[in-house]
């Protein structure tokens, strides 16, 4: 698994498949069903939004697809891998090579500069330093952070931090980017610019995107809109 080279292969139709997935949290005596028997497929090249009110299970679904959390029942498939069957190390390799994460709270590594944050996963993959440099500088330019490479997260605005997070997520050209409320903490102009960038990557490089959001701007741009309510799929609508 580790070190295996993948490409964004259009021959694999469903990049993500959830089969009757449920996630139950125990809160004291109370059982909270965050995700309730959800089944869905995300196709390669999708630009898809999971939307719904707070507590509808959007982030939990995203976390389970990314192997950050494990379902209480059901199965999650990423490309041809059943995530439940993978070891911690294999899951780490999948996340490193095939998934890009954008978190709502940015979650950049605080002691690293913008450049180092974006470079980190490439270095994990064993990409030589010179190649890393070229790719990172290109991606930082793409996300509009040219000249800010040496700034640390605490020296950047929320929008700039989110751009670094996106740069980190896409620099490896992953099969899918899982973005949790990527526009929640940025102003409108930045949100539009980030969405433009992600749309461009989707259209030009075939990177699949799955957002969790309740931002209308994201929903407007999504080609597929899955609505969640109380952990269940309420509607699944293909658009344009």
């Amino acid at each position, binding site marked *: 698994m*580790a070190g295996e080279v993948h490409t964004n292969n259009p021959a694999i139709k469903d990049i993500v498949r959830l089969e009757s997935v449920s996630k139950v949290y125990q809160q004291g005596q109370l059982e909270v069903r965050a995700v309730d028997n959800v089944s869905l497929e995300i196709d390669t090249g999708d630009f898809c939004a999971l939307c719904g009110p707070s507590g509808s299970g959007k982030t939990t679904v995203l*976390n389970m697809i*990314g192997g*950050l*959390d*494990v379902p209480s029942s059901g199965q999650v498939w990423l490309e041809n891998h059943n995530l439940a069957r993978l070891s*911690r*190390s294999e899951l*780490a*390799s999948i*996340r*490193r*090579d095939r998934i890009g*994460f954008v*978190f709502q709270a940015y*979650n*950049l*590594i*605080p*002691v*690293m500069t913008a450049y180092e944050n974006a470079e*980190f*996963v490439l*270095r*994990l*993959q*064993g990409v030589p330093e010179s190649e890393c440099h070229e790719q990172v500088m290109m991606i930082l330019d793409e996300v509009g952070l040219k000249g800010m490479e040496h700034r640390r997260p605490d020296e950047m605005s929320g929008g700039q931090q989110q751009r670094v997070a996106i740069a*980190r997520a896409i620099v490896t050209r992953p099969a899918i980017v899982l973005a949790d409320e990527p526009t929640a903490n940025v102003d409108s102009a930045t949100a539009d610019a980030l969405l433009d960038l992600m749309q461009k990557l989707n259209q030009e490089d075939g990177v699949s995107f799955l957002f969790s959001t309740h931002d209308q701007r994201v929903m407007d741009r999504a080609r597929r809109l899955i609505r969640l309510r109380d952990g269940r799929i309420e509607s699944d609508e293909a658009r344009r």
Partner: protein
Amino acid sequence: MNLIALAARNVNRNRHRSLVTIGAMTFAGMIMILYASLMEGLFLSTERNALAMNIGELQIHVKGYRDDPDLYTKIEGSEKIISKLAANGMTASPRLFGFALAAAGISSAGVQLRGINLELESKVTRIHEHVYKGEWLNRVDMKGVVLGRKLARTLSVNVGDELVIVGQAADGSMANDLFQVKGILKGVGEEIDRGGFYMLDTSFRELMGLTNGIHEIVIVRDDKTVEIEQVTDKLSAIFPHYEVLNWRKLQPLIAEILDLSDINIYIMLFITYIAVAMVVLNAMLMSVFERIREFGVMRAIGVGPWQLFSLIYTETLIQVCIAVVLAFIFGLPLAWYFQLNGIDLTQFISGMSFGGIAFDPIWRAELTQRSVMAPLVTLVLIALVAVLYPAIKAAVIQPVKAIHYR
């Protein structure tokens, strides 16, 4: 990915946290060096007091003398024996013993007269350094004597006072003479404190009418690395007609006490190290758990559990290496200071002895290879063990839990 470079960068960038962790470990290391040196000092001074005040390392007697210490049971030709010992890498001093009654004013007490060769005795024992009042013997003052502390109290004498010795001389006549107290010893052990009566060998011979022979030869090794048992066997073979015993056989109680005190020191060191380990563990736990979110993010973006474990371990190793160097730099002068000045316990234990071993009222540290290296090696081990739990925890925690860790 270069793990060491990444770990070094993390240590450097998390400067405040790293300083706190390194500071805690440095402080722990310094305390451990100081404590180990003080303990080493305590052990060595106990051994020194036990051996260097009186017993020496080995002794030679005529067979049977120790069971019945008779004035007439003498070693003849001691000069030859001492020369032979010197040729075998040993320093030796002859002693003469006799029993008499000492009287001063209305007080009297039975004493053990100890006739010593002034020059040679100072090479095998350090009794001359333990004068509490007055001064040690010299060749000019033939009638000067030095008494044990409790004996002086029993006789109610002070430096400069006169006392009379009455006993039986070697020829059967009465031995009596007037002496002057030249010095009073510090507490050096029960036997000497109560009955020690030091005088010049020439004065002893004159008093007791003993023209030749001696009663005891006290020996110390020039090379302390040679095993004492090995030396005993060797000397027994060289002098088959005499009884050669090392200090462990001469004073088995003291040997047991010293063995026990060695164990006590290790137990106390162990307890101290455990306390220090708690400090280091706390620092490591805080250092790792404060960053658990950061580690969760690393796990989320593809760092494997073993990679993260190795990273945390390497960071700890870098920090502990810096702490070891700093502990060495600061701990050494600290222990050195206490080696020179010691801790003055005169008010508490002056003149105290246990099982015939006097406690030195100035507790000095003793810097040895063991007292420096053992704490530093232990510090490294403690840090590496202390970080084990948080490193494993960070490595196996579910990324989503780590990211939302509070």
